[in-house]
């Protein structure tokens, strides 16, 4: 899978390319808006990693152009600004996600994969935490490579949690995912499903923990 990195700091670009290569991605590196514009119009990439402060212009401009041309390429924005006013700005211009420098390489890869696993994107197969795996293709959970049978609702909750690995999934997101935007949801329905899922996972020896963040949502993490 080929990615495009647009970053004017050659050292950083090289390190990112190297890191991504170990994770299985081939990367092309460019350092100006102009080059990126030219290459993007002729070449297909699975995702774009875009620095905002480029020598010949603002990365946000390029992003706007890409979106104006209805190019659905997932874009992960890198920014050194991260100031009190900068955050919403990048996302509103069409970025799918952003990272403030300095960031961990693992975080970059995780965010990238989250983008690539979205419907219609290229990465679709397996999500994994400790000995628990979830295949998004056939919606199959497995523990220690043994396929597990879970109810449809439990599977849906697990899929959502696995897709948002390391991040909190709000109760509202779970509700929307399971019941859609319409329909009445009993106030404790989600808690009931999460409780059942948690019980199933621990009974079957998964070394993961489904945390409840009271009033906020749920998070799945490796058991400590």
């Amino acid at each position: 899978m080929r990615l495009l990195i647009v970053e004017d700091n050659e050292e950083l670009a090289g390190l990112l390319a190297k890191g991504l290569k170990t994770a299985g991605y081939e990367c092309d590196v460019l350092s100006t808006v102009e080059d990126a514009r030219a290459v993007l119009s002729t070449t297909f990439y699975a995702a774009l990693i875009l620095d905002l402060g480029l020598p010949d212009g603002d990365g946000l401009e390029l992003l706007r152009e890409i979106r104006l041309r209805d190019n659905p390429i997932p874009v992960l924005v890198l920014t050194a600004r991260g100031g009190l006013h900068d955050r919403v700005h990048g996302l509103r211009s069409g970025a799918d996600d952003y990272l403030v420098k300095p960031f961990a390489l693992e975080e970059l890869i995780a965010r990238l994969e989250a983008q690539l696993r979205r419907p219609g994107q290229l990465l679709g197969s397996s999500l994994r935490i400790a000995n628990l795996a979830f295949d998004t293709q056939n919606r199959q959970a497995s523990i220690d490579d043994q396929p597990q049978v879970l109810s449809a609702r439990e599977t849906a909750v697990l899929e959502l949690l696995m897709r948002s690995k390391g991040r909190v999934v709000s109760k509202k997101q779970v509700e929307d995912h399971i019941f859609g935007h319409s329909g009445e949801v009993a106030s404790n329905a989600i808690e009931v499903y999460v409780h059942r899922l948690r019980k199933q996972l621990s009974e079957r020896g998964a070394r993961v923990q489904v945390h409840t963040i009271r009033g906020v949502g749920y998070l799945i993490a490796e058991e400590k």
Partner: protein
Amino acid sequence: MLRFKSIISRIVFLHVVAVAITSILMSLALSWLLSYETENIHHKAMQEQAASVGEHLSLTSDGRLELNLPLDLLGLYSQAYGRYSYAVIDDRGAVLFSSREDHAALFPGDSRSAPVEFLQQRRGNATVSGASVKKTIGDKTVWIQTGEDLANRDVLIDDIVANFYKKVGWITLPILLVLLMTDIAIFRRALRPLREASEIAEGIGPARPGVRLPTEEIPREVRPLVSAVNQGLDRLEEGFRIQRDFTADAAHELRTPLSVLRSRIDLLDDQDMRQALRQNVDGMAHIIGQLLDIAELDAVVVHSDDKADLQSVATEVAEFVAPLALAQGKDIALSGATEPVWVKGNPEMLGRAIRNLAENAINHTAAGSTVEFVVEGDGTVSVLDRGPGIGEDERQLIFRRFWRRDRRKQGSTGLGLSIVQRIAELHSAVITVENRKPNGARFSLKFVPLKS
């Protein structure tokens, strides 16, 4: 010393004083003119009377003077009427004729006097005022004196003089008041551009640094002040811009090399080394991030119409810090309002303040305990921990930049709470610090609620 806050009140006061002085002076001048004119008429009448008395003087054949007054004149000078009197005296001062009972002269005779003289003589409690006119008949020279008893003076003229203020003088006052009103109106009109400029000036702040006061309509006398204010604003805006540019440049110059360093470390093979270096870099990145926040907050812009949903901001922060807390074996919980709580403020900054409170709480809360977020409908957000609490003597110190209770402790910069305080300041929010029972601290931020 009287001090006036406004130009209008100063003008009104000075105008009232001027009106008072003018109306007094004007009344005095008018009444003086009136009595002068009355006096003139009186003198003229007396002189005419003397002339008409003189017409009836004639020389007899034996060379004596004779006075034959017609009836109407006799009536005028009768004792019964008592108002007018006459006397004729010769050049030796002897009284030839007199309407007076005592046959006396009205005024002392003086042969050197001018042909026409106006005299006044007090006699008992009556004052006689009149004229003395020289006349030559044949070879004889006489002085015909006519007088009017002022006590019996014509009532009409007296009334005019006496009632001048009541009847005529008052008219000056309304005229002057109308003038005053006109002046005030003119002044208010003239000051209108200044008032408009003030309204514009009210809207000037860090959020709208580009606004300048209009100079076209401003009166020339005040224009230098307005221009000077505009120039001052130019310099302030430039200062803000420089500070902002500096912060943005500094962020870029510091974060990019850190990012290179961090990526280089992430690619190391030695796992222990990698772990240790990551911690160092992350700690450094944290301090740099906070320093940049502080620099940015010194020149920050909070728009007056910024609004934030405190409930969703707090939820976002809770979601953000939850993985960090869980990694340290600590829990996060959010309670209170479930509906949006709108407050005045910039959501990003509010989030930064709450995040700093939360990170502080996570650092201090005991392992296995919960850091709680509480959002209330009145615009208050609180972060509660189960740490050691804040001593009475530390309540002021904790908000100081770089203050730390334990300088040996890793992961704390002593900047977090000073960022919280600065953001609170910018949003007119109130910070409260309390200790919880049996242990722990509660930090609350009360923002300005908006009616939704």
